[in-house]
């Protein structure tokens, strides 16, 4: 199986035909890769270098925390690359974004109104949790729709609070 991994503007090509047959950038590499204690910590030996990283699978990428640095990696396989080639490459920002509560907490303020236009990074909601006020920001530009919470309300984790369309 061929893969393309992308980190910011760098791309890497890998071919994995079983874990003892990995081709990186055209060359075979021998690696020893394993999860430690069944957790999402992975130890990899490659050419004697010992790397240990926390690799977490997110919705549309993988987060790799390696030697004190975070890498956001997008991995696509052959099939996905073909599919992407066929459609427009800018489909991601379409559709609604639902802002969910990352943790249980108390709504302290809602600096936006319905139908208001927001830019990427604008504050949408201030949520108090763990004795801190946390600002939840918009991941992209759009219009605020359907605010479902009010100031002073307690919200549960993953509760949808508003929508950006």
């Amino acid at each position: 199986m061929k893969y393309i991994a992308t980190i910011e503007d760098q791309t890497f090509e890998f071919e994995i035909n079983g874990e003892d047959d990995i081709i990186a950038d055209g060359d075979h590499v021998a690696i020893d890769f394993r999860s430690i204690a069944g957790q999402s910590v992975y130890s990899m030996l490659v050419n004697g270098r010992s790397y240990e990283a926390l690799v977490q699978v997110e919705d549309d990428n993988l987060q790799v925390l390696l030697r004190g640095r975070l890498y956001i990696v997008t991995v696509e396989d052959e099939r996905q690359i073909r599919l992407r080639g066929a459609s427009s490459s800018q489909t991601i920002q379409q559709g609604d974004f639902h802002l969910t509560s990352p943790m249980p907490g108390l709504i302290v303020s809602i600096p936006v109104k319905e139908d208001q236009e927001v830019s990427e990074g604008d504050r949408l909601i201030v949520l108090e949790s763990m004795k801190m006020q946390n600002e939840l920001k918009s991941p992209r530009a759009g219009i605020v729709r359907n605010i479902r919470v009010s100031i002073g309300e307690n919200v549960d984790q993953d509760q949808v609070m508003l929508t950006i369309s």
Partner: protein
Amino acid sequence: MFNKVLIANRGEIAVRIIRACRELGLGTVAVFSDADREALHVRYADEAYYIGSSHARDSYLRGDKLIAIAKQSGAGAVHPGYGFLAERDDFAHMVQDAGLVFIGPRPSAIAAMGDKATARAMVTKAGVPVVPGTEGEGSLSDEEIADIAPKIGFPLLIKATAGGGGRGMREVKSQAELPDLLRAARQEAESAFGDGNVYLEKLLTKARHIEFQILADDHGNIIHLGERECSLQRRHQKLLEESPSPFLDDELRKEMGQVAIKASAAVDYLNAGTIEFLVDEDQKFYFLEMNTRLQVEHPVTEMVTGIDIVKEQIRISRGRKLRTKQKDVRLQGWAIECRINAEDPYNDFLPSTGKITQSLLPTGPGVRVDTGVYAGFEISPYYDSLISKLICWGETRGEAILRMRRALEEYRILGVKTNIPFHQNILASTRFIAGRYDTRFVEERFSMDQAEAGKKNLAAIAALMATIVAHREGQRASQIVRKSERDTSNWKWMGRWERVNRS
């Protein structure tokens, strides 16, 4: 004389106090809320009592319940830790009225230092310099404040009279901003402390936050254990502390220490406390406030002085004389503390909750970890995000920094996100290493992205690891790759990809 102590707290500080009691042969009584039945302080204590729901107001803030449990269990003393009821003079009074020992200062000193305006007035009278601002009166009207503000000069800070922890605090850059920010500050102070009173303080730029640890016994002895440098803050929350401060020399240390003792004596201080100062570029220093309790960052002082501050607190409360004289206090080597919080440094430091699935502590020479969590424990949203304190000691500041770096690299906590990468970036920054930082450093001069851009680029490795994990996810198989004994790797691939982009 008491032989059993009720610990009116939770988390790492409750564990810390239990340890001190146990090492002194005293019995320990823990209390717990619904969220904390399996917390470490409950596991380690001799006795543990349920106290109420996970909301602090129903449990850890219920002075009446705490005192009832102390009486019922036969505890003779109450240690409040920090936070919760630690700086509430009414609680200290209640404890004493119940015939129990409050392990802390006299209620009058808590009250005097708790009202920040009163505290400023009292220490000023004792000849201690304070940060310029509104003096004396605590109940200023909006009009009075608008009047005084330009005389102090901008930028300035609005601070809650009953304040602490950055609540009810606002920075004001100009007269125009004042009315809105004043309203917001009063509102926050009202909701946080039930008291909307505020005062003004000049905002010192390029200032350092340096505090002195005080110990005072009931026999008229007051000493200080040197300073802690606490300038590395974000949103007025301390993140990293060290002792000594790279900014002080022996002469200034001595002078500030004497002033700290004088300020403590002004309120007839007893037990452990901390005098916070701001020190400006020209090494001029100003009293900021006194924390009338054990401080989160007390371990750095313990590491350089060899004195166990919590044990001293208990000894003092048992009426003992201080064992150490000022002339015998020596700061040996250097200690740094990193506060490890359950929060995501890559996502605006948003708190993170969940079950800790693995915890591998850094250990070895010169490393200390104070924590209340373990693998299997659930980090709840009800309390603060501090999950552990990592403290490293070295013969020199340089050695302490290098040791802290290796300890951070070793530390593995899975299940919640932590600010460990933030600390790694701070400890790699040239300004921190050179000791050139002030209270604005983190917010104004530091960014995770910039910090990481300067590091070794292991993008190819990260990409490969991510791809194998994605492949496994796809295959839903998890066979383990065994490295063949004969190494078939191609070395040039590594050479090409493991680039070093040191800035």
